[in-house]
């Protein structure tokens, strides 16, 4: 018997209309755990770098996490993995809610989708009965509306549905996959649309078994109250009405400027009143006591769910008030548009119009009000009408398609993906590394374990470190030494980046929410789940013997495998840069040293390619063999290149 997982994947070929239930190799669970980790292995075996993202051979994989369906609270994030047309690199996203656990109860750890349907379809998974069904009647329907329609026609109110809106159907790069109160962003909705897959509905009523039930329950049951009581986890910011931190520190418009002094007590009162008038309820994801999502009912809009920083992104990009944000989310959520990148694309288009690069010919009947302009542009983008066709490809590609100097306005992307609208003064060493090297493509999926800022008071600092159970010893020393307005050393910066990202790779394999774990150590230092208690949960659930070193090793393995995917698709050192004006004051020499040190620490050569030795130590021999066969590594490159990185950089 397999514990915690089902041991079966569902293989769907939409071109042929075939459905298979395929047993999986338990050895892969030991090596990668599950979720994104095992998905990356399937992709490695079956999606060579020659496969274009829009090819039928590109896979779209929905993965449960290893702990989904076990009693471990807060294990509910479904991973979606594919290759993105925006970057031609690995595309990874997550969504919360109820989908992953339901899929596991239906008897599957993953849905692996290949091919393309000839017309719009949806997938109906009801335990052992799986059907590809006609979805032409759902064309153009909103994402959540689609879920409601499908449940109605199946007469299955307990089914869980993940669906795309019009944006996904029309292959908009910022398209999301929407499910219940959650969304998957960063380039996965576009592939679902490309495969002509409108939705997946799941209903599962089978048992999930765990290896050591009594022991597991003993550590799970206290977690409900502990998570509920812990003020440092969940969506802390969304529960606050004081938005000063966001509106002062994040940039407005097309990630342009900070508006210090915008926030005051009257504003807070006004915004609180708005939110309270539109909020129906706080809601949660499966088996988690934190309520991180607002159910919103805005007059004239269908009910939708607001989460995280999307509360402000449209308002700030359009220089509008909070009311505008709640209004436009009612439209964009149904279209299935990413609330992070889309506002920047819209603000970018307005900048181009103001600069005369886009004209009334491109934007016939363009309104004068920035809010109305946003609504106008959204409709153009989701239909790929006129200029919307270029804008639907995100800022990077739109700038190059439009030309005439539009490229100058693309200033906030990394690896062709829009980043958080943050414009800061002084370069931050660990953040430089995270922005430059992350394969998760966004800082929020990379940062999170080591505090963002030091504690000025030495006594408080010592007290913090004393209770810092989540941290490996070396970080305690560095944090104790960290004085305000100083940089961590190169060595510390490298380790901070490494720890931060490793925790995300662990979460994304086992399905625990970053708000309880990898993202939530940086404020307060007390995430409910961390390197030292997770092995217990995993061991009791699966029966695998695992300690924190072994867990870290798996995180590294997954990180390197995904790195290898990107390297195989052409990613090199020259691509590893933060957004160009993220920091006003840069330090080129130091940046080179940081990257050198990080690559060396990771066991990568000077071009950022994992060496043969590194790969073999992680049991990824098949990757190094592939690299050698493709000439990505040569036999002499088992040792790092002697060529200095400075020389390489100037090439």
């Amino acid at each position, binding site marked *: 018997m397999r514990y915690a997982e089902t041991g079966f994947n569902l293989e769907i070929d939409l071109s042929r209309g075939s459905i298979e239930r395929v047993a999986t190799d338990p050895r892969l669970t030991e090596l990668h755990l599950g979720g994104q980790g095992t998905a990356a292995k399937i992709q490695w075996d079956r999606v060579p770098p020659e496969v274009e993202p829009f090819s039928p051979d590109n896979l779209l994989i929905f993965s449960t996490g290893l702990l989904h369906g076990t009693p471990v*609270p807060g294990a509910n994030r479904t991973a979606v993995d594919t290759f993105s047309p925006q970057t031609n690199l690995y595309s990874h996203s997550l969504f919360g809610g109820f989908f992953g656990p339901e899929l596991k109860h239906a008897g599957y750890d993953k849905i692996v989708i290949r091919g393309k349907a000839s017309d719009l379809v949806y997938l109906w998974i009801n335990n052992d009965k799986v059907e590809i069904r006609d979805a032409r009647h759902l064309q153009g329907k909103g994402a959540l509306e689609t879920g409601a329609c499908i449940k109605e026609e199946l007469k299955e109110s307990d089914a869980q549905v993940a669906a795309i809106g019009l944006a996904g159907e029309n292959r908009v790069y910022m398209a999301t996959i929407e499910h219940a109160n959650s969304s998957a962003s960063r380039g996965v909705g576009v592939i679902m649309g490309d495969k002509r897959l409108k939705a997946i509905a799941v209903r599962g009523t089978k*048992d*999930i078994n765990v290896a050591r*039930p009594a022991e597991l329950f003993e550590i799970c*049951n206290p977690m*409900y109250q502990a998570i509920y009581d812990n003020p440092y986890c969940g969506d802390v910011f969304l529960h606050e009405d004081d938005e000063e931190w966001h509106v002062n520190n994040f940039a407005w418009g097309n990630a342009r400027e900070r508006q210090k002094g915008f926030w005051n007590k009257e504003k807070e009162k006004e915004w609180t009143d708005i939110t309270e008038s539109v909020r129906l309820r706080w809601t*949660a994801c499966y088996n988690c006591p934190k309520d991180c999502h607002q159910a919103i009912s805005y007059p004239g809009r269908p*009910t939708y769910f607001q989460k995280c920083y999307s509360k402000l992104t449209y308002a700030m990009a359009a220089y509008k008030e909070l009311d505008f944000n709640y209004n436009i989310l009612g439209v964009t959520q149904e279209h299935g548009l990413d609330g992070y990148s889309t506002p920047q694309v819209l603000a970018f288009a307005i900048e181009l119009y103001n600069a005369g690069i886009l004209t009334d010919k491109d934007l016939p009947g363009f309104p004068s009000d920035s809010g109305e302009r946003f609504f106008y542009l959204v409709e153009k983008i989701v239909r790929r009408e006129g200029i919307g066709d270029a804008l639907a490809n995100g800022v990077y590609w739109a700038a190059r398609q439009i030309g005439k100097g539009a490229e100058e306005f693309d200033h906030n992307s990394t690896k062709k993906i829009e980043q958080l609208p943050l414009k800061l003064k002084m370069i931050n060493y660990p953040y430089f590394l995270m922005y430059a090297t992350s394969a998760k493509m966004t800082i929020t999926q990379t940062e999170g374990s080591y505090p963002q800022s030091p504690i000025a008071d030495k006594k408080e600092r010592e007290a913090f470190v004393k209770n810092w159970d989540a941290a490996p010893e070396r970080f305690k020393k560095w944090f104790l030494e960290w004085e305000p307005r100083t940089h961590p050393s190169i060595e510390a910066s490298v380790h901070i980046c490494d720890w931060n990202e490793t925790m995300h790779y662990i979460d994304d394999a086992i399905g625990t929410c970053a708000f309880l774990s990898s993202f939530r150590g940086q404020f307060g230092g007390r995430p409910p789940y961390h390197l030292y208690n997770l092995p217990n949960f995993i061991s009791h659930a699966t029966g695998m013997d695992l300690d924190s070193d072994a867990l870290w090793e798996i995180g590294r393995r997954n990180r390197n495998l995904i790195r290898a995917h990107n390297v195989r698709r052409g990613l090199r050192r020259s691509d590893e840069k933060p957004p160009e004006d993220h920091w006003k004051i840069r330090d080129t020499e130091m940046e080179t040293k940081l990257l050198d040190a990080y690559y060396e620490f990771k066991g990568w050569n000077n071009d950022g390619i994992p060496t043969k030795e590194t790969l073999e130590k992680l049991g990824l021999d098949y990757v190094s063999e592939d690299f050698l066969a493709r000439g990505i590594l040569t036999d002499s490159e088992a040792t790092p290149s002697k060529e200095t990185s400075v020389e390489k950089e100037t090439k």
Partner: protein
Amino acid sequence: MTDGLKKKIVKEIKVDLDKCIGCRACEVACSAFHARPKYSSTNPARSRIRVVIDDLNDVYVPIRAGDYTPAECTGRHTYAINGKEYRECSFCGVSCPARDLFKEPDSGLPLKCDMCEDDPPIPEPMCVQVCPHDALVYIEREEDDGEEEVHREEMEIGLEALAKKHGLQKVMDAVARMSVSKKG
């Protein structure tokens, strides 16, 4: 406060619909607690508490499995919530032939909430234990035990009042006269 009355403890779970966040931890905990061996598996489909969720209409209603009934009932209700109508069985906790709810998914046998009775007893039912939002709250209430006793007590109270007012002897005489005249 005995007054010679027999009392029993009634176990109750109070449900506050406004506090439910729809996480379904109650379903997970219930199914695990009732798995055999205990905790060996989870499966909300086996849970004896289910949260009926219609998220787009802000409906979150935890319902518990009641007694099994062999026949569909006739006393049907239609509910309207926020203007949307719900089928008559939507919020019913009875396990009955009309639907699959509160039945073991494989055998079809009915499920019933037993308030997690256990040996040794646990302080609160599992669903309540995993609900820190207090959408589910466990209460123990004392109640008079049985209807017969209540009736006997009522008569005694009445007689006592009469004796107080008229004196016990007068009441006894009256009872004796009544019984003689009935015989005659």
